[in-house]
């Protein structure tokens, strides 16, 4: 009971902390609530260490650091189909780099909380106009996994080769969100076992979007460093 009260209280406080985020009037209440709850969840993280790459991109693993990262990049949230399909969120840097657009999939689809959070931090990274919005690279052709098989976006098909869905740097949107999640998996001191497991599972999958083997190896070395 006590623990549940602490959780609810921290979520409420977290939502107040992210209250500066401005939602368009047409963003449904349930989507606003979900986004604020997810940000509150990230905002309450306490870490007990970080890797070198994490230090370089975000600084330490903790909620206030992530909150600042997000709030200095995204000021407004609106609704858009984001190109359709299964997209959950997007930014359109040429229109307004500091605005994030959510789709109805944000609440319609049942993703773990840390996976939804990863998507919004991935999109927040795209808001950095001074860094060319960390535009994605085209995945190489052919784009093969360790077993020599074509990498696909989902198991049923859609090869990634030639698609603008890869990063060649650990600092890009895929790279930075992989670094963030892997560090949450490793260093979050107040995350549940489920959150740490989810962070690890999604990070390792996301690592597959790094198209330069030397960069991927450097990231693995960074994650495994003592």
């Amino acid at each position, binding site marked *: 009971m006590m623990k549940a009260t602490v959780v609810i209280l921290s979520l409420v406080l977290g939502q107040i902390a992210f209250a500066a985020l401005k939602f368009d009037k047409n963003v449904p209440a349930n989507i606003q609530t979900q986004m604020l709850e997810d940000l509150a969840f990230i905002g309450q993280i306490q870490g007990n260490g970080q890797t070198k790459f994490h230090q370089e991109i975000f600084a330490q693993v903790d909620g206030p650091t992530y909150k600042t990262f997000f709030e200095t990049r995204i000021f407004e949230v609106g609704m858009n189909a984001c190109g359709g399909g299964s*997209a959950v969120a997007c930014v359109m840097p040429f229109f307004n780099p500091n605005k994030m657009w959510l789709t109805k999939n944000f609440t319609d*689809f*049942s993703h773990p909380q840390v996976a939804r959070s990863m998507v919004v931090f991935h999109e927040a990274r795209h808001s950095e106009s001074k860094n060319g*919005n960390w535009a994605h*690279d085209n995945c190489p052709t052919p784009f093969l996994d360790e077993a020599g098989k074509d990498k696909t976006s989902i198991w049923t*098909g859609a090869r990634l080769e030639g698609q603008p869905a890869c990063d060649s740097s650990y600092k890009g949107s895929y790279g930075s969100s992989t670094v963030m999640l892997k560090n949450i998996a490793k260093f979050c001191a107040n995350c549940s076992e489920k959150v740490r497991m989810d962070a690890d*599972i999604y990070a390792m999958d996301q690592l597959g979007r790094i198209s330069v083997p030397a960069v991927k190896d450097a990231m693995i070395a960074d994650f495994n460093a003592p």
Partner: protein
Amino acid sequence: MSKQLFGGLLLIFVIGLALLFKAKVDPDSGPIDFKEGNYPVSESDTAMGNEQSLVGPSEDVPQEMVNDMLDGLKEADRARFQSFLDISQSGRDNDPRIDSELKNLSSELKNQMKKYYRSLAPERRNERGFVSFLISRDAKSVEDLEFVGEVLTEEPCLSMADCKNLSDRDAHTGAVDQVSINYPQLVSLYQLESRLAAGSLDLSISALKEETRSALAKGARSPVPQIREKAEAIQKKYNL
């Protein structure tokens, strides 16, 4: 300006144009007016209130069925099952009760959770994964491992919106879907591997070893490469 940076900027520009064009030609969205609070909203966006969101209380499992599940439990387990329901329905994955109240589960409580799992719509990937996480983290009987095998032999889920049908794919955020559509299975394998690594699954009991072997064999026969390859890697690593 380097060739790579120019290419990247060009790519963003093209994607931006494509998004704007799509919005313009979508008969549901109407003309774009980017004035404050006046963004294009499609029919499906505004129809949200009539749809069942997959975050929040599940309407898949009728309340009478939940009441029956609660009634079938002793008082202490009833409170834990209620905590399980609260967390599952809220989608708050960082609830500390996950690592306190929802550990060392009784077989009766696990049976009710398995029932709940089977009642959930297949599209409830996170909720289903939550159950498979709790059971596989705590697996200590042949029945628990049979459940892991059951999860690993489920028909593959084809898309987040509808497990029976493919939907449009989005290469940009598709990596999230790729994991989420296979989430209950990946969680089971992750936990099995963690348990094997920690030596907390007692394989000196031959029945448990056989059932673990059987569950992994089921995973290794999965039509989903991501699941099959993970199961094969565990089989190989632990000689199972």
